């Protein structure tokens, strides 16, 4: 049996998790305070994923940039590709929280949405 120690990153409690694995299958998760911790551990040892937050350029806006995020977690190894793909994206003001910035970013099937408001100039 293999034992992996993780820190749950799903909320700021940061519970210390212990994952017991047998032939790369998860047998038991302990140390979590809530269900999200168990889900996180199962995913982290098989297919780790993260939410990405960055900014994109805005034209004709009161501010030159707006903050954005992936609507859901994307595979960890796609994080840098996602940020790179967003470097060339430009939004036209006005931008509102929730506006679609880019669909299916870096082939992940996940959309990127605005997390800030930028008014028109």
């Amino acid at each position, binding site marked *: 049996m293999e034992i992996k120690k*993780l*820190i*749950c*990153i*799903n*909320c*700021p409690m*940061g*519970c*210390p998790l212990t994952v017991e694995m047998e032939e790369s299958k998860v047998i038991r998760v302990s*140390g979590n305070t809530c269900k999200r911790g168990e889900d996180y551990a199962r995913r982290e040892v098989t297919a780790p994923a*993260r*939410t*990405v*937050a*960055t*900014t994109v*350029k805005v034209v004709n806006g009161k*501010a*030159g*940039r707006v*903050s954005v*995020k992936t609507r859901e977690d994307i595979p*960890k190894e796609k*994080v*840098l590709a996602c*940020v790179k793909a967003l470097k060339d994206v430009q939004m036209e003001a006005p931008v509102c*929280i929730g506006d679609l910035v880019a669909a299916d970013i870096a082939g992940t099937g996940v959309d990127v949405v605005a*997390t*800030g*408001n930028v008014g028109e100039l």
Partner: protein
Amino acid sequence: MEKYDIVIIGGGPAGLAAAVSARESGIGSVLVLERDKELGGILNQCIHNGFGLHTFREELTGPEYAGRFIEKAEELGIACKLDTMVLEISPGKIVTAVNREDGLFELQAKAVILAMGCRERARGALNIPGFRPAGIYSAGTAQKLVNMEGFLPGREAVILGSGDIGLIMARRMTLEGATVKAVAELMPYSGGLKRNIVQCLEDFGIPLKLSHTVIDIKGKERLEGVTLAEVDGRGKPVPGTEEYYPCDTLLLSVGLIPENEISGKMGVELNPVTAGPKVNESFETNIKGVFACGNVLHVHDLVDFVSEEAAAAGKNAAAYVKRESAEDTAEKDVWDAAGREVPVKPGEGVKYTVPERINAAHMGEKLTLRFRVDGVYRDCYVSVWFDGERVIRRKRQAVAPGEMEGILLDRELLLRYPGLDAIRVAIEPG
């Protein structure tokens, strides 16, 4: 002079939550004064996610979290003056402020809520002689540059201090294409949240060097590199452990300090440990009708707790205004005569508590006593003592200075000890 029931200084998450709560408690005349051109405070530059899990049961980014409260404040028609800097408050609650439109002006408030947040410690952080070349920034300034201006301050960075902003910036700079070579932390433990160490450093293979500091800086015009060294138990560099890191950027993330110049001048008593006002169970300072919440009171790592604390301060300020304004003084007289304040003292392992005085007759059914510990403790207990008797004992897997702790107190329990002299919170070994 214009008059308001409640004037709130600062329009960050604390000021906004206090305003919303005061309004919802039935006070119509509420004014928020904010020196920036927009509401939301420091959250506007915190574009990463992880805010609001407690408050909204979903994970939001900083601007989204602030957006929820700004919307709410707009819905309730709360008055705000932006680009308005508060200069002074008199003990009689006359607020002096300045902006372009009105020039210098004064307002009379019945109650004041201090919500000015905090600023970064910068000076004195680099305890080394020599030049200060370009390329040295506080982590918060770098956060603003990258997230608001889209400007990457450098290509190769070292970060001094492992506070959350430094950790978040390590990831942010990496995503933007810079190489972060190391995060050095003077203490033997990190000052930031565990989750940030995992997702901001470990995810990108950035080394966290505990018990390390910067001992030398190279470069006259522009930073060329820094030398890190290990420190011993007393913070002295250990000879032979020096390591040189070429870099063009050094970020300082060495802590935050509450912004209390105005509070101090008006006579609000400050706690030397938190650098924030000393408050009672109602978040009221030593000056009656002056309340404090958020980072101006004590530095928070979680904005959710800021909102919770601010909502309580807003509600208590509303109740104060109602009592003081009522023609019939019966309620006020009963309030003023009820109970007495018992001091809360930090015991073994505890650095400070907020509040530091509790009048059980004035508190709600439950009150979260917030505190920070002075070191890392594993498998320990958080205990609350009423004089010589231990009344609460809660198991904790681990506590650390970087994470604010809390313990719930019941009014019922307190009322059972009418002769109580002091409440003490302590960390006890398992």
